[in-house]
């Protein structure tokens, strides 16, 4: 077949036009007179409709701005955001949950809230936020991120299982160890179907704080992963591997997080032969408040299907002698406005709307109730909508109480936080899966992270 140059050129042009049309297909047009605010977030699964509803509510009430939410995989949202700033085409707003505020603030990637908010708003924010929410968004005393929800960890327990074993929820660390051994005696020879409790090697952050340690000493400006209290916490975590064997601990603990579609490890499957619900992987497990909604959902579905359910409870992390009460590692979700954002004012309006600041408390309470999130401010908690949610979900009350505690500590706001987090999690695994010496491992972590911190500080001078 002979194709003339003109025919070829026409085909190419049609191809380009079709490709361009395909690229814009599905994007809703920005209403006339509105300015588009591009918002990147990582919310997927059951949370995505909640986020879409928040955006819709905002867009409905606004006359000036129009938020376009773009959902992305959370695993590398930070890398995408960083590269978008470097490439000169960042979004206007991002919602993030990784400890990157200090890293990005140090490099000037994100704008301080002082550039977006009025002086009066900044002053109000100081008391409006819970202390952990303020810490999460701050670097060197300056607020960069506005928290819209806290992630607090506590100890969930299978109440039915504890009752079967005639045990009570633990009040201190010694009791937790006793429960663990009563349910899973160390000398058992059969392969285990479940454990009483197994520490998660990624959670040295939490146990280190509960034991009374601090990961960074602001007085000396030095990394302190080798704090004797943290070493003690890691040695305690490692004692479970010594008791049960590293391989078995790893098979349970790694499997919990790895398999796609894994459910809450306290849930057990329904056994049609006995018409009973089996125990899950553990009797107790440390996890965040998002499991409350999952428990409600799963139990409701089981009851509707006429199947038996287990009852669950939650207590603060139990402490050893001399440890901190109501303590743990806190994380959260926060908004950041990147340097180079085209609509910072619109981004600020949306941040306030979602987090509840500046008179939007009722709307934030509704969002938190729908998403099962812990509000960033006590003023949102006191809203009738959220109070009603708490009454319907009493397990959430423990988490909300914990959010007030000054012993809920985030990963230190250091410009090497990503590295520090990785190193601490690797230290937990080295001790629990390889039988490494906690003191040696944490000393090496301290040296590596401190050396990198010195380098970053030196480079910024």
């Amino acid at each position, binding site marked *: 077949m002979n194709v003339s140059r003109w025919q070829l050129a026409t085909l190419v042009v049609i191809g380009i036009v079709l490709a361009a049309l395909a690229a814009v297909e599905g994007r809703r047009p920005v209403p006339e007179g509105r300015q588009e605010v591009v918002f990147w977030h990582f919310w997927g699964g059951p949370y995505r409709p909640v986020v879409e509803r928040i955006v819709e509510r905002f867009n409905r009430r606004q006359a000036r701005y129009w938020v376009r939410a773009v959902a992305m995989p959370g*695993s*590398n949202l*930070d*890398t995408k955001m*960083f*590269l978008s*700033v*470097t490439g000169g085409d960042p979004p206007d707003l991002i919602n993030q949950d990784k400890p990157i505020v200090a*890293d990005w603030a140090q*490099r*000037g*990637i994100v704008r301080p809230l002082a550039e977006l908010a009025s002086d009066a708003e900044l002053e109000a924010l100081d008391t409006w936020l819970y202390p952990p929410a303020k810490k999460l968004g701050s670097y060197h005393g300056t607020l960069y991120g506005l928290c819209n929800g806290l992630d607090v960890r506590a100890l969930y327990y299978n109440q039915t299982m504890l009752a079967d074993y005639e045990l009570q929820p633990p009040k201190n660390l010694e009791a937790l160890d006793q429960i663990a051994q009563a349910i899973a005696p160390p000398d058992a020879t059969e*392969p285990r179907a479940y454990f009483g409790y197994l520490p998660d090697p990624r959670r040295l952050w939490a146990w280190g704080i509960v034991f009374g340690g601090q990961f960074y000493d602001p007085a000396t400006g030095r990394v302190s992963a080798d704090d004797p209290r943290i070493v003690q916490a890691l040695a305690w975590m490692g004692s479970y591997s010594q008791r049960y064997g*590293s*391989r078995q601990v*790893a*098979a*349970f*603990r*790694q*499997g919990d*997080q*790895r*398999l*796609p579609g894994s459910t809450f490890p306290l849930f057990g499957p329904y056994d049609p032969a006995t018409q009973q619900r089996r125990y899950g992987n553990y009797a107790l497990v440390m996890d965040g408040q998002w499991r409350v909604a999952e428990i409600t959902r799963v139990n409701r579905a089981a009851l509707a299907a006429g199947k038996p359910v287990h009852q669950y409870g939650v207590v603060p992390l139990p402490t050893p002698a001399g440890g901190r009460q109501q303590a743990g590692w806190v994380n959260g979700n926060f908004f950041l406005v990147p340097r180079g954002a085209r609509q910072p004012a619109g981004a600020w309006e949306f941040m306030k709307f979602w987090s509840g600041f500046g008179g939007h408390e009722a709307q934030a309470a509704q969002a938190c109730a729908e998403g099962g999130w812990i509000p960033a401010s006590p003023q949102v908690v006191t809203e009738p909508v959220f109070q009603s949610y708490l009454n319907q979900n009493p397990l959430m009350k423990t988490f909300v109480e914990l959010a007030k505690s000054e012993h809920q500590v985030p990963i230190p706001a250091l410009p*090497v936080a*990503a*590295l520090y987090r*990785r190193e601490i*999690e*690797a230290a937990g*695994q*080295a001790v629990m*899966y*390889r039988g490494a010496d906690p003191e040696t491992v944490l000393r*090496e972590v301290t040296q*590596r992270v401190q050396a*990198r911190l010195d380098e970053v500080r030196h*480079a910024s001078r």
Partner: protein
Amino acid sequence: MSHRNARQATLCGWGFISPWLLGFFSLTLFPFVASLYYSFCRYDLLSPPRWVGGENYRQLADELVSGGPLAHALWNTGYFALVSVPLSIALGIGLAVMLSWPVRGQPLFRTLLYLPSVLPILATAILWQWLFDPRQGFVNHTLGLLGLGQPGWFTSVEELLVGGTPGSKDALILMALWSTGNFMVIYLAALGDIPRSLYEAAQLDGASRWRQFWHITLPLLSPVIFFNLVMGTIQAIQTFTQIYVLSAGQGDPDRSLLVVSLHLFLTAFQDLRMGYASAMAWLLFVLVMGITWLLFRTARRWVFYQGAVR
């Protein structure tokens, strides 16, 4: 062809290859040269690179000597490449020889054995994660029925070659062997090129099947084995995607799956140390070049080309 036509043909030729040339210069050659420069700089992608001389390379040496993450990464990369490449060659040849036998359903067997190598890596990784799950997976379930030990596979830091128990790297190697179809197809094509007359002559001399394989098939496959050895080694050293998926993007458990390419990625895009990551990339490049050079040096001893005079 007139002078004008020749010029037009040349221009036309350049025009046709220009998309590739553009891509090569901007996406391969420029980053390649730039990364060499960055490897001597402190660079976080945002501020301009600052020349620090050999500091990044000195830090690389420090990290290696002190047994830091880079030492783990090099060990893991070496372990994976050293075990997976020879095994995939042996398996590829074995399967290709069997698939060349004129049996019923030969095309079906060929399709089935090639299929895994065209499946998306992500789907394959997730599938094997399920199969190798120590508590619920099919592999351990089967081993249990046979009364054999049940390793931790992807959840374990153990190493078959060191402690005798399979762990995460060994599971990764088994997974890599599953998709050896690409190499197998090349062997299959090469087997078809071996003259039948050689086998007939050997049969007349009373050579057994094994002697025919050892003295005819293997030597005449050696150029293809060499090609697969070089390409397989390079691929194994650069493996990234499946490890990223299987190790929670961190090389878990306890850095037993931290390979050089993953360590490089984390250093560049999580720690924002592009200069140091560039130095690491050059270390990897030198490593690959060194191994390839060594393989070419040894090739003279064991690679036979039909019709070549020795």
